[in-house]
């Protein structure tokens, strides 16, 4: 009989119920208290984090729900990104979303719950549902400005490509299921290995499964060539949702990738598919992502679009650690995503605040911001410099670990390419800083920031500085996740 250890999913259940409560509360108070529901949402997320701390460790539902260090680590990232996205969206819901404010926060929480289920999935079906549960609320949220033509268009593009990729992913999963005869990821690994021994090679069908699953998860990661949606959707979606897409949803993709490829298919990294194992495929895609993302970002004039391309490039760097498939590799990917949370959420929070105050997303309109709002400019500079990997900010340590893992695993060419493209990346990050600090003529804009947004910004900056100077706790936590895979 299956073991239903309900204790372990208390955090998820709580967050789900809290989402329902937020929606109900908003309806019940006649949608009069946008600030209050915002703070309630943030409080709920914080409470979930506490519950997560109290209830974790173990497996439940027949190995379908794993509350292991990997899941825990990424759940922290998801909660963090949701917290920061909600925190930076107070002005938006006050100004742009007149109705359905509760649903806005509710859907953010639903998506977060989906990510949490995804991170814990030990089995293909729940992984698939977790993925859908992550994505579908985001379809809705991307199109949330119903009267804004570009927001609706972003929602549409995200939906069509998302559903398309989900169908391809499903086909890949069906092949994995068919070849292994099980949906349990650990059993799958064993069965595939047995099959390999019995028939002396699994052959092309598994390769097709790998490519299709890669396409499905590649969509979430915005990995080239499955990235086409990202710039458009990032630009069109409400900025906090863009932030959530670029961090939370991406981290969900990363953890799904780890669950399937590292946990389920690691045994086949070289033996079966030599010379073209998934590592090499992913390495090539990562290289393409770094080149295309960084180069495309150069000439962008819209900050959100620029950050979209930058995040395409960033996922290329993350994948350097992923293909290393080692303790340091997995650990460095976790660390990278954790730091990326602060830097990217922070940068998008500034973009949100700026848009709220000026209604503009263009980089040119940031001219002279350092004079009118020195603090926010300094924060933005820190976020961007961290993304560019300037020490001692945490982005540097993150890149360093990832590249070290790549070198260790023998992907020297990839690391060289990564370092070269990182040089290019500096150009467009520095461009924004140059605008803010070194651009003279500008009617001064004074940015008003709500308290919650300030909290978000301070969390971001503090995270980048503290974990840049003293990465040990997070890194140890991240390296702990690698133990799940038993390297």
């Amino acid at each position, binding site marked *: 009989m299956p073991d239903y250890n309900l204790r372990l999913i208390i955090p998820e259940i709580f967050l789900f119920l809290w989402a329902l409560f937020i929606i109900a509360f908003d309806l019940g108070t006649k949608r009069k208290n946008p600030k209050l529901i915002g703070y309630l949402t943030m409080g709920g997320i914080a409470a979930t984090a506490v519950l997560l701390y109290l209830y974790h460790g173990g497996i439940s539902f027949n190995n379908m729900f794993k509350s292991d260090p990997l899941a825990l680590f990424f759940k922290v990232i998801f909660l963090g990104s949701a917290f920061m996205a909600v925190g930076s969206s107070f002005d938006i819901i006050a100004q742009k979303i007149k109705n359905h404010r509760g649903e806005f926060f509710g*859907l953010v929480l*639903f998506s977060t719950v989906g990510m949490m*289920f995804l991170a814990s999935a030990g089995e293909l079906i*729940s992984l698939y549902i977790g993925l859908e549960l992550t994505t579908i609320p985001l379809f809705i949220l991307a199109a949330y400005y119903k009267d804004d033509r570009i927001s609706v268009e972003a929602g549409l593009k995200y939906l069509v490509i998302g559903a398309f990729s989900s169908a391809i992913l499903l086909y890949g999963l069906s092949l994995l299921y068919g070849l292994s005869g099980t949906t349990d990821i650990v059993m799958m690994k064993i069965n595939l290995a047995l099959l390999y021994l019995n*028939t002396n*090679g699994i052959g092309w*069908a598994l390769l097709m499964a790998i490519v299709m699953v890669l396409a499905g998860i590649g969509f979430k990661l915005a990995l080239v060539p499955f990235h086409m949606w990202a710039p458009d959707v990032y630009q069109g979606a409400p900025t906090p949702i863009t932030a959530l897409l670029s961090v939370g949803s991406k981290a969900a993709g990363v953890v799904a990738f780890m669950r399937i490829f590292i946990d389920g298919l690691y045994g086949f990294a070289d033996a079966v598919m030599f010379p073209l194992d998934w590592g090499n495929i992913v390495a090539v895609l990562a290289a393409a992502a770094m080149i295309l993302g960084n180069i495309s970002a150069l000439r962008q004039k819209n900050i959100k679009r620029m950050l979209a391309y930058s995040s395409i490039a960033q996922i290329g760097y993350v994948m350097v650690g992923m293909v290393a498939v080692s303790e340091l590799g997995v650990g460095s990917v976790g660390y990278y995503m954790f730091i990326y949370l602060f830097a990217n959420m922070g940068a998008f929070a500034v973009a949100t605040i700026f848009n709220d105050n000026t209604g503009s997303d263009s980089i040119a309109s940031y001219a002279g911001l350092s004079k009118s709002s020195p603090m926010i400019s300094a924060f933005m500079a820190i976020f961007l410099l961290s993304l560019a990997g300037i020490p001692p900010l945490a982005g540097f340590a993150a890149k360093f670990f990832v590249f070290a893992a790549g070198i260790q695993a023998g992907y020297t060419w990839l690391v060289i390419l990564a370092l070269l493209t990182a040089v290019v990346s500096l150009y467009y990050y520095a461009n924004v800083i140059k605008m803010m600090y070194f651009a003279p003529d500008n009617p001064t804009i004074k940015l008003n920031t709500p308290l919650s947004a300030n909290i978000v910004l301070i969390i971001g900056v503090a995270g980048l500085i503290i974990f840049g100077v003293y990465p040990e706790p997070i890194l140890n936590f991240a390296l702990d996740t690698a133990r799940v895979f038993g390297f």
Partner: protein
Amino acid sequence: MLDLIIFYFAAVIAVGAAVMMIMQRNPVASVLYLVVSLVAQAILYVQLNALFVGALLIIIYTGAILVLFLFVIMLLNLRGEHFGGKQSRMGRASKIAITVILFAEMVAIFKQVAIPERIGTQAAAVAEDFGSVEMVASHLFKEYLYPFELTSILLLVAIVGAVVLAKRDKTEKMEDA
């Protein structure tokens, strides 16, 4: 032999209707072709001892999802001018070529006899009640209770989302999808 005839009959209808579906300009016709294709697929499900799921296919897809499509088409009151003009012949041909290549690759993969005794030949006999309601249900509510419960959240999200999106602000009360 009879099995094989039924298989080919159903397969031809399934694929043919699918092709017709994507060729249509009028979505109503597309919906109907999709219904035909799905019914043919349900026959194939039955051939694979998947009685219960085959029945669900017809009930859920044709009964719910496709009706939803029809409903939306009616709701929007779509006419010809909403569907756009003609496509360029080259674009279309190249896209057909792309999908043909996809299909060729997939066939090549399935034809590769890496596990001949399992894919290539007939499947072994299965238990009498394989695919029956009881068997599927016992799996669904025991082993797979967890993903099943997750679908409930998913459907709830879809409802909330559809209401939020499709509702006209301030003008009408409710108009859910």
